[in-house]
């Protein structure tokens, strides 16, 4: 009942709906632009004329203000802040995208299968996933990373697996509403195989839900990685990640607020961009669903 709320708003409130028809608005494209820059910078980090993010040059000035040689200045050890932030972006995006791929891959496929097949498979999977949802995931994540070691690959696997239950639940719910429609019955009565029905009839209808939750999950995992890095459970210094840059900058006395501000803003802009883009897309898809 409540899931239709947003489309109800879209119908009831004229102003935003008209705006939605015209397009996504300038802020949406600013957000997309930021994410694009982030992706480019991450991919081409090796090619860009940047200093080594971990190198402490012999003649480097600590806590230097932004200048032509160091666009964002240097940190307390004289390392180039821009280079460290970009390397941090690499870590955040790699972990975020890797873990999201695992979560969506497993949770999405199982969710669609469970809702389509129903019966015993659905029963057992749902029981497993609901227990997983009740279990405080962050405790398990912290414990596992501590005992297993917190290499980047470990974070990807652990954060990915623990995002599965929620994605499973959302995708299963979305599939359920699609799997009971007439066109699915029609396809099956014409003798289409399960694989074909899932791929051709159900997936296109679930894809918008999957896409928006991919974006939200990505944001959530990047934020969680930041928090884990903050307590020392992500990549270790001298390697940089946004979380450990923020943690490091606050542990040096006296605190250099500029040093703290740069990774804070990088993370903040990224989360704003992901959440806003996800939210606009969700409204967009809800709107088209309501019209059809």
């Amino acid at each position, binding site marked *: 009942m409540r899931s239709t*709320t947003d489309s109800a708003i879209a119908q009831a409130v004229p102003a935003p709906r008209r705006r939605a028809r015209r397009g996504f608005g300038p802020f949406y494209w600013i957000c997309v632009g930021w994410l694009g820059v982030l992706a480019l910078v991450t991919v081409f980090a090796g090619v860009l004329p940047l200093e080594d993010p971990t190198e402490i040059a012999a003649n480097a000035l600590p806590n230097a203000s932004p200048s032509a040689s160091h666009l964002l200045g240097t940190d307390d050890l004289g390392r180039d802040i821009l280079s460290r932030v970009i390397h941090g972006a690499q870590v955040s995006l790699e972990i975020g995208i890797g873990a999201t791929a695992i979560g969506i891959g497993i949770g999405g496929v199982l969710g669609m299968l469970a809702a389509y097949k129903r019966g015993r498979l659905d029963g057992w999977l749902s029981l497993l996933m609901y227990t997983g949802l009740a279990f405080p995931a962050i*405790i398990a994540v912290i414990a596992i990373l501590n*005992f297993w070691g917190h290499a980047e690959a470990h974070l990807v696997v652990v954060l990915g697996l623990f995002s599965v239950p929620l994605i499973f639940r959302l995708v299963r719910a979305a599939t359920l509403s699609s799997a009971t429609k007439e066109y699915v019955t029609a396809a099956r009565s014409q003798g289409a195989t399960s694989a074909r029905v899932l791929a051709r009839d159900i997936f296109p209808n679930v894809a918008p839900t999957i896409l928006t939750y991919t974006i939200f999950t990505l944001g959530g995992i990047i934020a969680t990685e930041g928090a884990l890095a903050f307590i020392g459970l992500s990549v270790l210094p001298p390697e940089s990640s946004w979380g450990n840059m923020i943690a490091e900058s606050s542990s040096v006395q006296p605190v250099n607020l500029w040093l703290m501000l740069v990774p804070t803003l990088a*993370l*903040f802009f990224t989360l704003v961009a992901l*959440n806003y883009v996800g939210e606009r897309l969700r409204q967009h898809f809800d709107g088209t669903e309501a019209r059809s």
Partner: protein
Amino acid sequence: MARYVVTRLVALVGIVFAISIGCFALVHLLPGDPTVAILGTSDTPHNRAIVMRQLGLDRNIASQYLTWIGNVLHGNLGYSFAKGQSVSSIIAQSYRYDLFIIVLSQVIAYIVAIPLAVYSARRAGGVLDQGATSVTFAFYCLPSFILILWFVQLFAVKWHLFPGPGAPVFPTGESFVSEFRTNLRVFLLPSAVIALGTIALYYRLLRGEMLATLQEEFITVARSKGLSSRRILWHHALRPSSVTLLTSTGNNIALLLTGLFVVEYKLALPGIGYQLVVATGQSDYLTVQGIALVVAVTVVVVNFAIDIITTLVDPRIARA
């Protein structure tokens, strides 16, 4: 209603059972050996065998689980060698801090978010609505570890408005309430940080629900009867709109029980989350297990309570 409560209770017992297996498995499937931490330098095969037998680690896993769950049901969660005290006493001591912060932050969040959402929904797209929506969206995108750092840096270190990290908490040994009052200043900073994120969440939810409710026919009827706008907003629209808010309060409290670790870690406030981070660092298996179990069960119980409250607010749910 009674039937609804009973079916929910049965489900609750089932989930708690599944969770207990999860907590048990978490610690037993992890690599590492608790005897290493206990034995320290006197780690010889002979001593190890003795300790293994004392801890019951030489028996098969099913009988270990049964012994453990039996002890748990008697309130015995084991003994922390790292801390030199029983796990249940560690949890009992630290849980209060989390309760203080959660109660305070949720009260602040309700006081701010509910009026804000109600008045924003009254004029959707108006100045208040746009302002509040943008500001809360920004806070929604600020993880608590960033907020707590900036709050400590600005409000505690720079302007000395609050006690900084490591501020002592004075156990008065008296009632919950008196201890809460004595240490209010220490808890205000972390609670404010948590409240900001929570306000953003509650505001978004309640505003959306209010907008939907205000389109319903009974609101039109109330309007045509000539009732005042204030009465319609607060008496007719808020109650049916608040169901989602209640459900998400349950989920949010559940998340906070573990999500507080960042804030507690930064402030060196020995709550559950802080103990968890410390215990994992010390390979203190039993404490990790105990905390996981207690938190998970609390989560399930809180959600159960919220389910019941929700049906009291909106009786249609139990009938569905």
